C-alpha cells in the first residue's frame, strides 16, 4: 500500500516487481502512466476514458487528468489544438494522475511537440506517422521531420506506426469512405495499447456498440479498428515487450470511475435526498464549473430544479430565494463568478439562510487561464465581501472526495443556516479516479426542522432567536401560518430581527455572526505520520492532496519522516489545528497560489510556515514536492 516510489525516468513504469525482460516477454509493473495526445478532433478524451474504464474494470487503482485546449476547436494540427488525456494505473492505491507519462501516444506533430518534453528519457513513444506531413510539420514549427533524424530514437523507445493507413486498410471492406474510416484511428491506438498492457477488450467493444447503436456501421468500424490495433501489436515484431499491471488491493466494495464535477453533482443530489428538501440550482455556465449544471440538469427526477440564469448574480439570487422558500439553494461557478456573487453572498450572511456556493477554481486573475487549475480563490472566499461577512469554507481533496465534500457543505449550510463556499478546482473537476460507492444507508442524515410555532417569550415569532448551541436562527418558510416576518440586508436586532441602527446591537451581531461560523463543529484534522517521528509538517488543502501525499510517501521511503495534514475545513479551521502545528519544528504549506492558506495560518497561529507556491495552472508534481519536502526535512535535521 505504500509502494509509490516513482522514478519517473524508468521506462514503462517501475520494474520493481519480478518479471523477465527480454524480447516477446511480459514484464510486470506496479504502475504505469500513459498519455494519449492528439488533435482536439482526434478523440483523445474518449480513448483515454475507455482505457481508464478497462483498467478500472480490471481492478487497478487509477487517476486521470484530461487537458483540453482553451479554444473550442483550434485550427487542426496546431499546438493550441492539442488535446491530451493522462492516466495512471497501478496495482496499489495511488494518489495522482502521475507526474510524467511512461508512454506517450502522439497522433500528430503538434501532439508530439507539445508533450515530448514531459516524456522522461527512455520512455516509450508511439507516433502516428501518417500525420507527419510537411504541411503539418511546418504548422508547428518543425524545420525537419523529427522522426527522420535520430534525436528521438536516441532518447526514447520510439514506435512509428502508420495508424491512419492501417485503420483505413482494416476498414477497406466496410464500405466506409476513407475519411470516415480514418476517424477510427484513435480506436486503433487504443487497441494497440490494450494489447501492450494486457487489458481486457470486451468492455470496449460493448461500449462502442452501445455508443453508436444508431449507426451500426460506425460502431462496427470502430470495433474493427480497435481489433486492428490489438492485432498489430500481436503480429508485428516491433513491440518486443508487453506489460502487466496487476489489480490493486483496494478496499472491499463496489467501485466506479468518477470525475470531480460528477461526484460533486451527485453529492448535491444526495444532499437533497438526505435532507428531504428539493434542490434549486441557480447558476450561469462557466468553465470549469458548467458540467455540474449539465449533470444536475439530468436528475430532475430527484426533485432538482436547474435554473440557468441570465448571469451569476441572478443565479445566486434564485438559489437564495429558493432557500428562503425552504429548498436547498445551490449555485455553481468559478472565480470570476464568485466575484460577481459576492454582494449576494453578503445578503445570505445577513439573512442567515442555507446556501451552497460552489467555486470550481481556475487560473486567475480576471479571465486568466480558464481551462487551467489553481487554488487562488481561498482569500476571496474568506474575505471577498464588504463588511465582516464570515462564511464557512470546505474543500474536496480529490475527484471522488467531491461527493463527501458536497454533503459536508450541505450539512453545515443546513445546520448553521449559512452560506458555505465549496472550493473545488479545475484539476479535480475534470480529473477522475475510482470511487468506492457508498451505501445510501450510510449517508448522513441531513433532515431539517422548519419553524412552525411562535418562539418568543411574548408569544410572537422572532426570526433571529437562535438555537443556543449552533447559534442558527429558525428557518420559517413562507406558508407557515403565524410566523410572518420580514428579513433583509439591513442590520437586524438580535432576536426580533427588526431593523436596528443601535450601535451596541450592531457590534453584538457582527461578533455573533462571526461566533456562529467559528463555532461550527468540524472534525479534527488527522495527521498522516506513519513513523510518528516527523519533525516537519506539511499542510495542504484541496486538490494538492494527491501530489503532497505521494511526495510524502516518497520522502518517507527515502528514510525521512514527514507528517501530512490536509484541510477539508478552511473556515473554521479544525479545533486541533493549532495543537497539531505546535508539535512540529517546521511547517510547510504547498499551494497553487502565492500562499493564501499560509497567510491564514501565520496570522492565526503565528507560525513561521514556509509557503511553497507554484502558479502554473497545473497540479503539483509529486517529484517536485518530494524535493521540496526533503530540503525542509534536511534543514530541520541539520
Amino acid at each position, binding site marked *: 500500500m505504500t509502494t509509490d516510489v516513482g522514478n519517473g525516468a524508468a521506462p514503462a513504469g517501475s520494474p520493481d516487481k519480478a518479471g523477465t525482460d527480454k524480447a516477446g516477454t511480459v514484464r510486470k509493473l506496479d504502475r504505469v502512466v500513459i498519455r494519449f495526445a492528439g488533435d482536439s478532433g482526434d478523440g483523445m478524451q474518449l480513448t483515454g476514458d475507455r482505457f481508464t474504464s478497462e483498467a478500472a474494470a480490471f481492478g487497478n487503482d487509477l487517476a486521470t487528468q484530461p487537458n483540453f485546449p482553451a479554444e473550442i476547436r483550434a485550427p487542426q494540427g496546431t499546438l493550441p489544438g492539442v488535446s491530451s488525456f493522462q492516466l495512471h494505473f497501478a496495482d496499489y492505491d495511488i494518489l495522482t494522475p502521475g507526474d510524467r507519462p511512461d508512454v506517450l501516444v502522439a497522433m500528430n506533430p503538434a501532439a508530439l511537440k507539445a508533450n515530448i518534453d514531459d516524456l522522461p528519457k527512455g520512455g516509450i513513444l508511439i507516433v502516428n506517422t501518417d500525420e507527419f506531413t510537411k504541411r503539418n510539420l511546418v504548422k508547428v514549427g518543425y524545420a525537419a521531420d523529427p522522426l527522420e533524424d535520430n534525436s528521438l530514437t536516441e532518447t526514447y523507445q520510439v514506435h512509428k506506426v502508420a495508424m491512419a493507413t492501417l485503420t483505413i486498410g482494416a476498414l477497406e471492406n466496410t464500405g466506409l469512405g476513407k475519411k470516415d474510416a480514418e476517424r477510427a484511428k484513435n480506436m486503433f491506438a487504443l487497441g494497440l495499447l490494450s494489447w501492450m498492457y494486457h487489458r481486457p477488450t470486451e468492455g470496449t467493444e460493448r461500449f462502442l456498440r452501445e455508443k453508436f447503436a444508431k449507426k451500426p456501421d460506425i460502431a462496427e468500424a470502430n470495433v474493427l479498428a480497435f481489433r486492428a490495433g490489438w492485432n498489430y501489436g500481436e503480429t508485428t515484431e516491433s513491440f518486443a515487450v508487453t506489460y502487466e499491471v496487476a489489480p490493486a488491493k483496494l478496499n472491499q466494495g463496489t467501485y466506479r470511475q468518477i470525475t470531480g464535477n460528477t461526484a460533486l453533482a451527485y453529492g448535491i443530489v444526495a444532499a437533497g435526498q438526505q435532507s428531504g428538501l428539493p434542490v434549486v440550482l441557480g447558476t450561469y455556465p462557466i468553465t470549469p464549473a458548467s458540467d455540474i449544471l449539465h449533470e444536475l440538469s439530468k436528475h430532475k427526477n430527484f426533485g432538482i430544479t436547474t435554473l440557468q*440564469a441570465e448571469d451569476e*448574480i441572478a443565479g445566486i439570487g434564485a438559489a437564495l430565494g429558493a432557500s428562503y422558500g425552504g429548498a436547498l439553494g445551490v449555485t455553481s461557478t468559478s472565480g470570476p463568478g464568485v466575484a460577481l456573487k459576492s454582494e*449576494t453572498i453578503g445578503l445570505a450572511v445577513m439573512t442567515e439562510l442555507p446556501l451552497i456556493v460552489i467555486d470550481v477554481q481556475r487560473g486567475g486573475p480576471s479571465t486568466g487561464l480558464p481551462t487551467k487549475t489553481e487554488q487562488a480563490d481561498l482569500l476571496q472566499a474568506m474575505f471577498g465581501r464588504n463588511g465582516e461577512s464570515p462564511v464557512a469554507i470546505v474543500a474536496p481533496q480529490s475527484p471522488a472526495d467531491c461527493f463527501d465534500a458536497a454533503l459536508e457543505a450541505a450539512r453545515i449550510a443546513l445546520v448553521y443556516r449559512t452560506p458555505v463556499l465549496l472550493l473545488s478546482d479545475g484539476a479535480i473537476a475534470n480529473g477522475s479516479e475510482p470511487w468506492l460507492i457508498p451505501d445510501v444507508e450510510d449517508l448522513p442524515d441531513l433532515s431539517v426542522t422548519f419553524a412552525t410555532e411562535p418562539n418568543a417569550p411574548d408569544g410572537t415569532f422572532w426570526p433571529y432567536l437562535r438555537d443556543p448551541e449552533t447559534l442558527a436562527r429558525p428557518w420559517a418558510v413562507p406558508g407557515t401560518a403565524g410566523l410572518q416576518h420580514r428579513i433583509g440586508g439591513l442590520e437586524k436586532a438580535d432576536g426580533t430581527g427588526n431593523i436596528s441602527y443601535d450601535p451596541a446591537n450592531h457590534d453584538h451581531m457582527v461578533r455573533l455572526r462571526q461566533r456562529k461560523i467559528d463555532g461550527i463543529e468540524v472534525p479534527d484534522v488527522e495527521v498522516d505520520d506513519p513513523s510518528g517521528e516527523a519533525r516537519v509538517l506539511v499542510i495542504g488543502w484541496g486538490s494538492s492532496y494527491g501530489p503532497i501525499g505521494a511526495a510524502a510517501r516518497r520522502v518517507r521511503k527515502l528514510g525521512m519522516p514527514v507528517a501530512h495534514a490536509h484541510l477539508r475545513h478552511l473556515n473554521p479551521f479544525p479545533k486541533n489545528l493549532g495543537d497539531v502545528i505546535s508539535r512540529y519544528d517546521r511547517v510547510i504549506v504547498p499551494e497553487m497560489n502565492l500562499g493564501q492558506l499560509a497567510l491564514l495560518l501565520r496570522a492565526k497561529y503565528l507560525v513561521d510556515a514556509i509557503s511553497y507556491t507554484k502558479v502554473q495552472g497545473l497540479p503539483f508534481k509529486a517529484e517536485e514536492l518530494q524535493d521540496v519536502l526533503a530540503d525542509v526535512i534536511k534543514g530541520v535535521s541539520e
Partner: protein
Amino acid sequence: MTATELGLPALGGLVGVPTADEPQKAKDYKSDQEVRWCPGCGDYVVLNAVQSFLPTLGLKRENIVFVSGIGCSSRFPYYMNTYGMHSIHGRAPAIATGLAVARPDLSVWVVTGDGDALSIGGNHLIHTLRRNVNLKILLFNNRIYGLTKGQYSPTSEEGKVTKSTPLGSLDHPFNPVSLALGAEATFVGRAVDSDRAGLTEVLRQAAEHRGSALVEIYQNCPIFNDGAFDVLKDAEEASRRIINVVHGQPITFGGGDYAVVREGFGLAVAKTADVAPEDVVVHDAEDLNLAFALSRLSTQDLQHTVTGVFRNTARTTYDDAAREQVEQAKAAKPADLGALLHGKDTWTVAG
C-alpha cells in the same frame, strides 16, 4: 418538448395558493412596523391601496410574499403582515424567481423603484418578463433616486437638474412600458398613485394573470421630485391627459371628448366629434403592436399618459414549466439514489 406544450396557460395567476378561511380586512395586512416614508410620500397611498386590495383576493396571508430591492419604495415589505424580504439593490426579481420556482403555493410580489428596477436591476427585470415567471412586479416610478437623496434616474426627463446633474442630465430616459413590451412581457399595466380605483383595477388584473405582471405606478416623491405627476392629479388637466384603456373598449378619454385613432403605424389623439366612431381604436390587450403604439402615445412630458392594462396575454410561465419538468421526470424515473451513484460501469473488489 417546448414550454408551450407543457401547458397550463389557462390557469389563473393565483391557482395553487391556499385561500383564507375567514374574510380579511386591510388592517390584517398591516405589520407592526412603523411606516417610515417622508410625510406626503406617494408610497403611502400605494401601500394603503395594496393593503385594501389584498383582502379581496382571499388568500392566506402567510402564502403571500413581498420581495423588494433597495430604495424608499423597497421598504414596502416591512409594512406588510405577510412574509417578506428586503433584499439588495436591483436583485429582487432574481430572488423572487427562485422563490416562485420553488413554491407554487405562494403569491409572490416584487416591489421596486425606477432605479432599482430599471437601472441596476434592468437585466433581471427584462429576463423575468421574457421568462414570464409568475410574479407581480410593482414598479414605483418617481423618476428619481429617493433613498440616496435625489439623483436622476433612468426615467427622469432629459435635462433634469439633480444633485448629480447640476448642468442637466444627458440620458434619454426609458419608457418602462415600451421596454417591457420589447422584452416579451405578457402583462404590462400603469397607474397613478393617487388614483386608488385605477390602481386597484390594474392590481386585480395583474393578480389574476398567470405570469409576470409589470405594473408601473407613477409615484410622487415630495422631497426630491415633488409634483412630477401633478398634471395628472389636477382633475381638469388629467381629463385632457390621462387615457385609460380597457380591453375591448373604444379608447376615448376626457369624458368621451377625445379619442385615440390611428396615425401611420402609430396612434394619435383626436376630438371624438371629428372622427368616425369606427375610427376610434378599440383596445385589445392581446395585441402587442397596439400595446407598443399605446406606450409611445404616452410621452415623457405627460402630454398624454396611457393608464390601465396595455397588454395581457397568456403564455406558459417559467415556474410552471420548470415544475412540470421535475414532475414529469419524477413520474418517468424513480429517485433511486443508489442506482444513480452506481451508474452503468462499476466493478467490485472482494474482501
